[in-house]
């Protein structure tokens, strides 16, 4: 009787404790050291579901890329790791080391978690190879207090945008905040102006069919230099963009939604933050928005491992997405969970109304080997934003572009 009692207790204990016994540890390699805290929150939430998710951050993107490249070249691709979308994802997919995730996406779309269209951002040649780590739309954040004081409303057309900017300038404020901080931000206004003036050229630029000194690009630089000439931009040399916005050095801030979290942490009262999508230039009908999608990918070995797929499924689950959203302020596109902040919910509402086409950010779309040199040229223009510099910049960018596509054809 005593033995039977002990056995029953053990069986009961095992049943109750079973889910809490840790499965194999699944490492999520990433280069998002600044998000370690929020990622750890997701890991903690995963642990309550019997998933042992270990966050393995690299502080530096270059170190991280080198680690992944060396691992893939050695045939030891990590099971679960973050990467970049677009051309860079294509290079990784071409190695054959990544697992396609069509089955998972089918589940996610079927139950309404993700809208159609989002999958395409994480697909190569129609096949999805990643799920979102975060999905950020590039929008104009603005200080509502200034708008209210000047009696302004978010512009819905290009001419309204010009009027709003002119009124802000006339009132002694700087309309737009834009810097070359950290050396990568130079492309932000270029990509937005190109999409608003010529969406076809935006796509063509990154598949080699449109030149960097084409009429469409010249038009962008003309508009951009004109805006600088009117004094509509803040000092590009600043290294404190977030603080500059808080200090009122620019009223409108074109950036990814993920800046909301940074603004909040730096002390900006988020209830005073408004958002709108930059309107199209006259003649452009297509409603569009630039999206930055940071992916999590899984290797073929990882896809064959039950624990890894369990961790991945948790990430895109309602609980996972909600935990991540609350901890980081990031949105992964899961519509079944509340938006992490009001800005994201406002953008969702605007997109639902406008049926905007999603365009992948320039940074991901441009071939990886061209990224650094191209953005350095954009930065160069921002520091001396006249048409003489613009022509020189366009010439240099086109030389780099031509060399890249010529070498690509050879290999």
């Amino acid at each position: 009787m005593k033995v039977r009692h002990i056995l029953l207790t053990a069986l009961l204990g095992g049943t109750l404790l079973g889910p809490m016994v840790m499965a194999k540890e699944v490492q999520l390699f990433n280069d998002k050291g600044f998000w370690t805290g929020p990622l750890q929150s997701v890991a903690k939430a995963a642990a309550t579901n019997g998933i042992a998710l270990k966050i393995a951050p690299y502080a530096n993107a270059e170190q991280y890329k080198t680690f992944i490249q060396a691992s893939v070249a050695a045939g030891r691709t990590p099971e679960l790791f973050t990467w970049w979308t677009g051309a860079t994802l294509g290079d990784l997919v071409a190695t054959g080391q990544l697992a396609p995730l069509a089955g998972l996406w089918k589940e996610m779309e079927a139950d309404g978690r993700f809208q159609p269209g989002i999958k395409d951002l994480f697909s190569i040649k129609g096949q999805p190879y990643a799920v979102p780590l975060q999905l950020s739309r590039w929008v104009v954040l603005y200080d509502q207090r200034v708008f209210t004081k000047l009696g302004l409303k978010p512009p819905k057309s290009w001419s309204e945008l010009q009027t709003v900017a002119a009124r802000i300038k006339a009132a002694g404020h700087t309309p737009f905040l834009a810097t070359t901080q950290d050396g990568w931000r130079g492309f932000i206004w270029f990509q937005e102006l190109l999409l608003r003036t010529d969406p076809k050229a935006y796509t063509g630029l990154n598949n080699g069919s449109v030149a960097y000194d084409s009429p469409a690009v010249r038009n962008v630089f003309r508009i951009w230099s004109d805006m600088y000439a009117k004094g509509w931009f803040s000092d590009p040399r600043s290294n404190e963009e977030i603080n500059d916005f808080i200090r009122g050095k620019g009223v409108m801030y074109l950036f990814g939604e993920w800046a909301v979290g940074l603004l909040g942490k730096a002390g900006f009262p988020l209830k005073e933050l408004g958002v709108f999508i930059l309107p199209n230039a006259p003649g452009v009908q297509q409603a569009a928005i630039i999206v930055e999608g940071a992916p999590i990918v899984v290797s073929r070995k990882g896809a064959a491992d039950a624990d890894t797929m369990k961790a991945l499924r948790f990430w895109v689950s309602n609980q996972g997405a909600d935990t991540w959203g609350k901890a980081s302020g990031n949105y992964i596109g899961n519509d079944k969970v509340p938006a992490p902040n009001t800005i994201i919910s406002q953008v969702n509402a605007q997109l639902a109304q406008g049926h905007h086409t999603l365009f992948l950010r320039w940074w991901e779309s441009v071939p990886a080997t061209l990224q650094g040199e191209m953005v350095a040229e954009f930065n160069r223009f921002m520091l001396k934003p006249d048409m003489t510099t613009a022509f020189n910049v366009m010439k240099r960018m086109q030389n780099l572009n031509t060399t890249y596509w010529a070498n690509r054809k050879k290999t």
Partner: protein
Amino acid sequence: MDPLMHNNQQLLNRIGLQHIQAAEQARQRQQFLLALPFMAPALLLVGGLLLLPVLYNIWLSVTHWQLFAGKDDFAGWQNYIQLWSNPYFDDALANTAIWVAASVVFPLLLGLALAMLFRQMPGQEWFKSLIFLPRILAPTALGVMWYYVYAPEGMLNQLLGMLSGTAVQIAWLFEDSLITPAIILAFVWQSCGLVMVLLLLGLAALPRDPLEAARLDGAHPWQVFYHITLPLLSPTILMVVILSVLAGFTVFDLLWVMGSSYPQQRTLSLAVFMYFEAFQKNSWSFAAATAMVIGGVVFAVSCLQTMLQARVDRMVR
């Protein structure tokens, strides 16, 4: 052969010098073989961590490195040809030459002037410590500090504004013509302390007799410095030059931190150019070719300096 030499040779042969020489060589060989096991760990370390990577780098520089596939198809001189036609390489090379020249001339002149000044000055230890203080700062910390000194609303512009009475907003670290001199100033500020200390050590080791004799003979202080002190100090000066040249070629931290917002950062030096090629563009074999160019230039300069060192040593003896 000179008859005197021939006689000497005969004498040496008679006393069995050849046998003595042979025995000495055998003894040295034996000692070397005995020492080899003790040297082995150091040799393995140097070989494994230094020589092997260099040899691998030489191989890598003549291959095509595929990004993920890791294939290294032989490419001959293609990477080197591509290097010379790269639009940023010329600027990087020119800036490196400026760096090397500046890293030798300015710290040496300033360090020598400070060494001569503090040599016999009351309270010299306090001044020497103050001048040496920047040397103990990490280069990255120093770079961040100077970045804010040079910022558009930084200390330097504020000072110039106070002196001129108008607002000054010079973009020291953003203008093509200003960024390299600005960073060189930070480098000189950091390194002149070490140069001063090395030269002070050299000055302390100089024999006093020639200097006193010259003074007694009525030589002017400048004549004593130019004709006696400087030649006697030349081995130390040459050592300082060698260290400064190497520092000039390998400078990275300051350029990385202070040039972070400069659009053409990759042209600031060959070392920075190589970093961008290797880790931003992932062109590993192209970066290997750049490393070979840097290594080749440094090797050539080192050989030249070694020859000069030998000549100076002979002159001083």
